[in-house]
Structures are given as structure tokens and as C-alpha cells.
């Protein structure tokens, strides 16, 4: 890199907070023409926020903007919208495809930027009656595809393409955006996890295409969890953690291990008094999962084998999209699943929520509002419903009819409102009126009310404030200790898992990549998360 040249993009002292929560602290970096920058970090490290600032997304503007300055070609810029970014030659390919299924590659590449010819009706009814100029459309798309240098048929409908070609179509669309009248040539591409859905061969093709673009002077910010790819293709590597840039190094003799260390390597001393030594020899296996597969979109589980011991708290961690959420959702019958699961020696019938609940399993879903709660009903209903339906609690007989026992329901709700310090005006309040943290406590209360023998808790602290977080974690720990209930807790936050679990399993690519005691150094977990490290 020629350091004397004016950098293409420079960010200086970028800071951002969301409602008092500082998500970016003083971020500085420089990107040169034709440079491929690998951007690495755990979920929530601040990568997305940084990119959203670059593209002037509404989510940034509507929350009070950002501090610091952004320079393009040495000039301070203030983008009003992502269109301004585009006009500066900056394009982004998002993780989710944004393609029209029945349209061909060409039609998708030029979507809403189609070259047009005037028609008879244009003067009468306006520009939208222009006829599409198919020849020019083809030309633009072929140009873009050629620049990428990939085998992509421009006239194939997207829904018949392999997934890799869809990804290429997305990239080609960004490249083609410099064919507009006012737009500058595309100089910077941001690729967010482009290889996550690709096969190895396809990913290779993509990396080759990236190198080709870079040799033509296009700079690329490459966000990926696949560290090998980062090392293979990038000129420099930037690691983010907790809203800070931890490392920015040139890609020379960098090893995967060190990147992984930088990613997760915050060595917070776990409070000693919360640690306990769990005696695995005395605890029998409670839940045994063998060859589990789950078809949960975005969180596919391929082949999971894991034993959970009675009375332990097992943590399941891993990066988003690797399949950790699929495990509880599959076992509890919310998504189609297969494999052998036995609980206390009895085989479990999968895909039957009722059977699983009857067997004494319970689940606190990560999707509070969608799965966990009856938003339009009272807290009483939310707390008592599961136990009423599964265990016939809170019912009273009246002749041949079983009624809801309003008194018992009120009693149990009041008990949990008190025990879990749920803030509400009354137990008749509707669940949707509560804050996220209190909603989460209601979900826990619902599960506790069912007196489960084993409890799955999925992302229990997602989207709730710090105070509530600690309370939820303490509650779980206490529940486990006092009632001897086995808990399987799934979380994206490794430190949270380390603070209350006995062991932690890390899921990558739909499989258990390793299980370590919670006291292991966090760098070991980091290695497992990015697909490295020994299987234990």
C-alpha cells in the first residue's frame, strides 16, 4: 500500500450511541483504492452499525446520527441517504438476498434502474409508460457479470439458480450501479457475510471474483466469520469487539488463532463465588441427543450429538446462523426435526410439542413476542396457560365440566410477580404493555409454573437492559440450585454463558464443534466459534 496516496475512505473518531448505550467508541480506520479489508467480530461487536453509518441508513439517522467524521478522497462527507453513498460509488451487498424470484438475472441486476425508450404513451401518462430497452439491459448486466468474471447466465430466472449464482447476481447489481447517468464508478463494495450460504466451490469463485475486482481498483470491505477466507483474500484485517477496533493489521503472517483471540479475547474474571464444581460422575445423563437435525430456516441443525447431565446448566453458544437456536426449537417440536432424543431413559417423540411438554420438558423461546407470549391477554393467562393445558393445573371441577380456577390463577401469578420482581400495574395487565425485561420474566414464570424437569432457555437476555439481565440470570441459577432442574441455556453472549453455566457447547455449521468447561479461557471458545480448535 502506498501510504502517501489519499485514502479512498477514512473514518475518524466515529462514535455512536443508541439510547445511551454506546455501541461504537472512537472508531478510526483508513481504506485505500483496491484494498480488500477483512472486517471480523462477534455478533454485536458493532460491524453492522459501522456499515449503517457508512450508508446513512435510517436506523442511524432516526436515533440521533453519529459523532466523528467520514472522509472520501480526503473530503469530509455527510450523506443524507444511501443514495448519496451510491453516488460516491459505494455499494453494499446485504446478507439476505433481495431478488425477485421470477425475474432473470438481468432483470434483477437492473431492477428499478432499467434503461428505457420513450413510447407513444410516455408523453400522455409520464415516464413510467416508457418501454424497457432490453438490449441495453442485457448489455449492462453482461458488463457487470464480466467484471465479476463468473459463469452467470444473464437470462436465467433467479428461482432456478443455485444459491451461489444468486449471490453473484446481487454483487453484479451493485457493480452495475455505476452505469447510471450521475453515478460515479463503483469504487467500494461492502460484502456482508457473502460466503455464509455458499458451498466451498462457490465461495472459491467468489473470492477469485473479489481479487479480480480489487485488481481493477475496487476496494472491498469483506465481513466474514470464516477466518481462513479472510486470510486467503484480504490485504488487511480489522477486528472489532465491543464497539472498538481491537486490531488493524496488514495480512502478513497473521494466524487464525490470533484473530480468534482478538475477536473474543476479553478475559473478564468470572466472579469466583458464582463458580461451582459440578460433579459429573454423580450426575446421570438426563437428556441425550443423537444425530439431531432441525429444519429451522436460518438456524439449520445438521448433526448434533450431546448429553446433558442431571442438574447441570449446559450452555450452548456459537455465532448467529450456525444452528444453536435450532436445537431447542427442534427438540421442542416447533420446527421439523429428526434424530434420536432420549430423556431420563425414555425415547422422546419429536415434532410433537404436547408429548415433549408431557414428558416434563419446558422451553422459553428466544422469540418472546412471536412464540413466548399471548400479547393481547392478561399476565394471569400468560403465566398459567401452559400449566393449565399440559398439567391440568389451575382447574376446578364443576360437575362434569372443568373450569378455569380464577383464584388459583391469580395466586400463582401474584407469587411470580413478587418472586421475579415483575413490574406491572396488575396481574390483569396485557402482556404487550410490559417492557422487554418484564416480558422475559413472564416467560420464565410460565415455564416455572409448569414445574419442568428440564428447561430450555433460549436467548434469555436478548434485548433487555442490564439490570434485568442480571436478575434473569440469577433467577435461572437459583431455580437450578433450589429445584435441581436441569437447564440448557442458549445464548449469543459467551460471557453470559460463562457466568452461570457448568459446561458450554459451541455450535458451528449445525454441529457441536466442541464442549468445554465454562472456566476455560474465552480464547478457546473463540477458536471453536470460528470453526477452529480441537474437538473435545
Amino acid at each position, binding site marked *: 500500500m502506498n501510504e502517501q496516496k489519499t485514502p479512498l475512505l477514512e473514518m475518524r473518531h466515529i462514535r455512536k450511541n443508541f439510547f445511551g448505550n454506546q455501541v461504537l467508541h472512537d472508531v478510526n480506520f483508513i481504506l485505500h483504492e483496491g484494498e480488500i479489508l477483512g472486517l471480523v467480530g462477534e455478533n454485536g461487536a458493532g460491524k453492522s452499525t459501522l456499515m449503517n453509518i457508512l450508508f446513512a441508513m435510517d436506523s442511524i439517522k432516526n436515533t440521533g446520527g453519529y459523532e466523528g467524521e467520514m472522509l472520501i478522497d480526503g473530503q469530509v462527507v455527510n450523506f443524507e441517504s444511501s443514495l448519496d453513498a451510491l453516488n460516491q460509488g459505494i455499494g453494499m451487498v446485504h446478507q439476505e438476498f433481495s431478488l425477485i424470484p421470477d425475474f432473470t438475472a438481468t432483470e434483477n441486476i437492473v431492477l428499478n434502474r432499467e434503461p428505457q425508450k420513450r413510447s407513444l404513451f410516455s408523453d400522455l401518462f409520464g415516464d413510467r409508460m416508457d418501454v424497457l430497452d432490453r438490449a441495453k439491459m442485457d448489455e449492462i448486466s453482461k458488463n457487470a457479470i464480466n467484471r465479476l468474471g463468473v459463469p452467470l447466465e444473464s437470462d436465467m430466472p433467479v428461482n432456478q439458480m443455485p444459491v451461489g449464482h444468486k449471490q453473484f447476481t446481487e454483487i453484479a447489481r451493485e457493480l452495475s450501479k455505476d452505469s447510471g447517468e450521475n453515478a460515479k464508478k463503483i469504487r467500494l463494495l461492502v460484502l456482508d457475510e457473502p460466503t455464509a450460504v455458499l458451498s466451498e466451490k462457490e465461495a472459491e469463485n467468489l473470492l477469485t471474483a473479489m481479487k479480480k475486482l480489487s485488481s481493477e481498483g475496487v476496494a472491498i470491505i469483506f465481513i466474514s466469520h470464516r477466518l481462513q477466507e479472510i486470510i486467503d483474500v484480504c490485504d488487511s484485517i480489522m477486528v472489532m469487539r465491543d464497539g472498538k477496533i481491537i486490531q488493524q493489521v496488514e495480512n502478513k503472517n497473521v494466524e487464525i488463532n490470533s484473530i480468534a483471540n482478538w475477536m473474543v479475547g476479553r478475559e473478564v474474571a468470572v466472579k469466583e463465588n458464582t463458580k461451582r464444581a459440578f460433579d459429573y460422575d454423580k450426575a446421570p445423563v438426563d437428556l441425550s441427543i443423537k444425530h439431531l437435525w432441525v429444519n429451522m430456516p436460518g438456524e439449520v441443525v445438521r448433526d448434533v450429538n450431546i448429553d446433558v447431565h442431571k442438574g447441570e446448566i449446559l450452555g450452548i453458544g456459537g455465532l448467529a446462523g450456525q444452528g444453536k437456536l435450532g436445537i431447542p426449537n427442534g427438540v421442542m417440536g*416447533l420446527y421439523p426435526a429428526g434424530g434420536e432424543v432420549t430423556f431420563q431413559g425414555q425415547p422422546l417423540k419429536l415434532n410433537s410439542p404436547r408429548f415433549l411438554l408431557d414428558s416434563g420438558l419446558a422451553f422459553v423461546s428466544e422469540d418472546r413476542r412471536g412464540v413466548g407470549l399471548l400479547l*393481547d391477554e392478561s399476565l394471569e393467562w400468560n403465566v398459567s396457560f401452559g400449566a393449565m393445558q399440559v398439567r391440568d393445573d389451575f382447574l376446578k371441577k364443576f360437575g362434569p365440566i372443568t373450569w*378455569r380456577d380464577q383464584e388459583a390463577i391469580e395466586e400463582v401469578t401474584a407469587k411470580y410477580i413478587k418472586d421475579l420482581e415483575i413490574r406491572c400495574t396488575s396481574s390483569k395487565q396485557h402482556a404487550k404493555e410490559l417492557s422487554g425485561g418484564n416480558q422475559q420474566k413472564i416467560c420464565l414464570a410460565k415455564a416455572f409454573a409448569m414445574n419442568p424437569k428440564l428447561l430450555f432457555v433460549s436467548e434469555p437476555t436478548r434485548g433487555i437492559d442490564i439490570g434485568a439481565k442480571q436478575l434473569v440470570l440469577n433467577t435461572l441459577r437459583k431455580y437450578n440450585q433450589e429445584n435441581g432442574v436441569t437447564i440448557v441455556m442458549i445464548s449469543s453472549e459467551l460471557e453470559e454463558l460463562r457466568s452461570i453455566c457448568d459446561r458450554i457447547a459451541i455450535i458451528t455449521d449445525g454441529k457441536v464443534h466442541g464442549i468445554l468447561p465454562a472456566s476455560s479461557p474465552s480464547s478457546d471458545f473463540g477458536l471453536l466459534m470460528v470453526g477452529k480448535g480441537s474437538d473435545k
Partner: protein
Amino acid sequence: MMNKIIDFVHKAGLPRIIIGLFLFALFVIAPFVGVKLDISLTNVMNRFGMNCVMVLAMVPMIHSGCGLNFGLPLGIISGLLGATLSIEMGFSGMVSFLMAIVFSTPFALLAGYGYGKLLNKVKGGEMMIATYVGFSSVAFMCMMWLLLPYRNPTMVWGYAGRGLRTTISTEGYYLHVLNDLLSLKFGGIVIPTGMFLFFALLAFLMWAFLHTKTGTAMTAVGSNPIFAKASGINVDAIRTLSVIMSTWLGAVGILVYEQSFGFIQLYMGPFYMALPAVSAILIGGASVNKASITNVIVGTFLFQGILTMTPSVMNSVVHTDISEVVRIIVSNGMILYALTRKSEVAR
């Protein structure tokens, strides 16, 4: 004070208040333009009693999240089969009415079961399909009314000796069996106590059902089907049950209607009967996925009240009967309002 009013308006919903005030105004104006209040009141009560069971038939399906029961004609047809069978057998009086319910029950259960299974296959598109299931079944029964071997001369066409007539009088069978039961007279006002009691019985049973374990599950299914599934509820079975209940109530509803109206209307008669019932419950404050017994009572009263009062008052004031137009605009406007409300779309 102002806050209280705003709160009340918010709770009761603006459309209901406007309609309520309109109805109130009609009652106030009525004596001044020469409309006899006692007759009007009797009419309103009578029509309320006639229609409220059919409006009640909306409740189970709304509760289970199947949406507004535009397929009510299916239940009505079961009722018509029961009615004609009971008359064919020659039962009379209260027995005739009760036998009609008994005979219509198996049809309602069967039709409701099939209809429920069908609606489970088309989750998300229930209302449009329900509408057309209703229409097709009415058209199908048109053929059946012609072909079924009914013999009772009060019901079949005199000249051909077969094929049911388009309207059949319930006189001599179960005309007014509920209306006249325990009916009270205050001056010119007649209260059809029997009809009210019958509705009260059904409404109580519905209320009680919603307080049982299964009833609770039904509400949960309508409120959040994924929550219900995660809680081990067989969502499809609950939905089917709700559709069966709605269909059976539709069947009973038409029988109550006929005993007061005096005629059984076959062929295209049941065709548009779903719409008034749907709009009545919506006027009563129900939404596409929430409904209560109170909604049924308030809605039927307001809707039927307007239908009864508008023509008599309007006739006296402007000598024009625009009640039909008012009915169409109010009822469909109400359904549109419910369908396009933002909160419901977000679900």
C-alpha cells in the same frame, strides 16, 4: 371530565358511538314525526331476538383465529335441512322446533367438520374461501331442494308434487314458539321472553365454554397460534372444533329466525345472510380476532335497531324508504373498517 369522555370514546370505539348516537337520535325523533314508540320498540326487540343467535355464531370462529365467518350459509343450510325434515315428519309446536334442532345437528356437525378441515388447509385465506364455500353450498342446495324426495304438501310445489317451494310457512309447525313463550305485554310493548331466554341460554353456554380448559385453549389459538402450538395445543383440532360450533349455532340461529319470521326461505334465501351477522358483531366492537358475548348483544341491538328505526322514521320525515341503502352502507362500511384497521393487519 374531558379526559373521561376521550377515554370512553377510545374504549367504545368511534364507529359504535356514532351509530349509537344515530340510533338514539332516531328514537328521540320518532314520537315527533308520528312513529309509535311502542311498536318500534317491539319491533327492535323482536328483530334483536331473531338475529342474535346467528351473530353469536360468529364468536367461536373469531376466537380461534379463523376470522369472520362468511361461511355462515353452511350452518344455515344445516338448519334448513333440520327445519324441513321436522316439518316433513309432521311435528308441530315446540316439539317441531326442538326436533328441527335435533335433525339439523348431525348435518351441522358434518358440514362444520369438513368446512373446518378445509379452513385448516388455507390458513391466512380463510375469509375469502369461507365466502365462496357459503355461496357454493347455497347453490348446491338449490339443486338438492329440487331433487330431494320431500312429500309434505305444505312444502312442495302444488303443480309438480315435488321440489320444495321457495318459501315455506312455519305456521302450524313452530311459528312463534319462542316468541310467545312466557311473552310479556306492557301496553303496546310485547317482550318475546322465550326468545330472549333461549338466546340467554346459548350465550351462557358459550360464556361457560370459554371458561373451560378447551375454551381457554381456543382463545389462545386465536390470540397467538404459535404460542398455542408451543404450549402443546393441537391448533388444527381446536380450529375445527370452533368451526363446528359456529356452524351448529348458525343452524340453530336460522331456526330461531324462522320461528319468529314465519317463513322458511330456501334456495337463494341464505345467500347473503352472513353479511348482516358479520357486520352486527363488528358494530358491537369485535375485531377480526377478538369477540365477546357483549359484542354480540350490543352489536345486534345497534344494527337491528337502525334497520328497524331508519325506515319508519325516514318514511315519516321524507316519505322515502332509504333503509335498504343505509343497511348496505352501514354494514359493509363496518366490515371494511374492520378489515383495514392497522392493528389487525400487523398481526
